[in-house]
């Protein structure tokens, strides 16, 4: 089962947990990505996400399905925020369940790695003296 969400509202760890929990599973691994107050030494004040929603949802689902297949997971939940976020806000939650925990850890790490590589979502960091799209330019 895959549970995919792109939302302008605050994300819920409990919702992701509930989406993957199952009596057959002994291990659930979650990754929660939050907004840091600095990046490469610069002070970050806040952040905005831009997203190509239809393709982002399609890519998130593709990654979740591939993770289930590759790592033999029971269920995968991928929730990502959109819009303006403050320091400490949750940007992304990944939750995966499996019968044994090694697969849960490996699958969860794989999902967030892939998400950061291919899902069309862009982060604009606002510093005290300007803003820039993260990773866009050398």
């Amino acid at each position, binding site marked *: 089962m895959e549970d995919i969400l792109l939302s302008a509202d605050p994300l819920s760890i409990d919702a992701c947990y509930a989406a993957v929990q199952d009596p057959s599973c002994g291990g659930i691994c979650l990754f929660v990505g939050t907004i840091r107050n600095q990046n490469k030494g610069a002070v970050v004040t806040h952040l905005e996400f*831009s997203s190509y929603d*239809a393709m982002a949802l399609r890519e998130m689902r593709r990654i979740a399905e591939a993770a289930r297949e590759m790592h033999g997971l029971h269920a995968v939940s991928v929730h990502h925020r959109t819009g303006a976020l403050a320091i400490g806000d949750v*940007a992304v939650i990944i939750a995966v369940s499996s019968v044994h925990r090694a697969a849960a850890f490996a699958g969860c790490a794989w999902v967030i790695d892939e998400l950061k590589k291919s899902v069309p979502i*862009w982060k604009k960091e606002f510093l005290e003296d300007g803003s820039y*799209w993260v*990773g*866009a*330019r050398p």
Partner: protein
Amino acid sequence: MIQHRVLAFAAAAEIFGGSSCAVALPAGATVADLRQRLLEDHPALGELVTFAIARNELYALPEEVLEPGDELVVIPPVSGG
């Protein structure tokens, strides 16, 4: 010639000066042709670390032939998560 509408997000939208631009290409033109034309029309795209082109919500291969009505999108380096 076929008129294509090309959408852009994030750094690419700032380079376009808007969320889309129009590109006219001969019938049979490929994604590689579109890329080259975009770089000619908007040289600042060359300042990006890289960019991809999505066609109908999937990452497109250079040799894919563009069809009228395709949803074409410039994808600058992603940074979600």
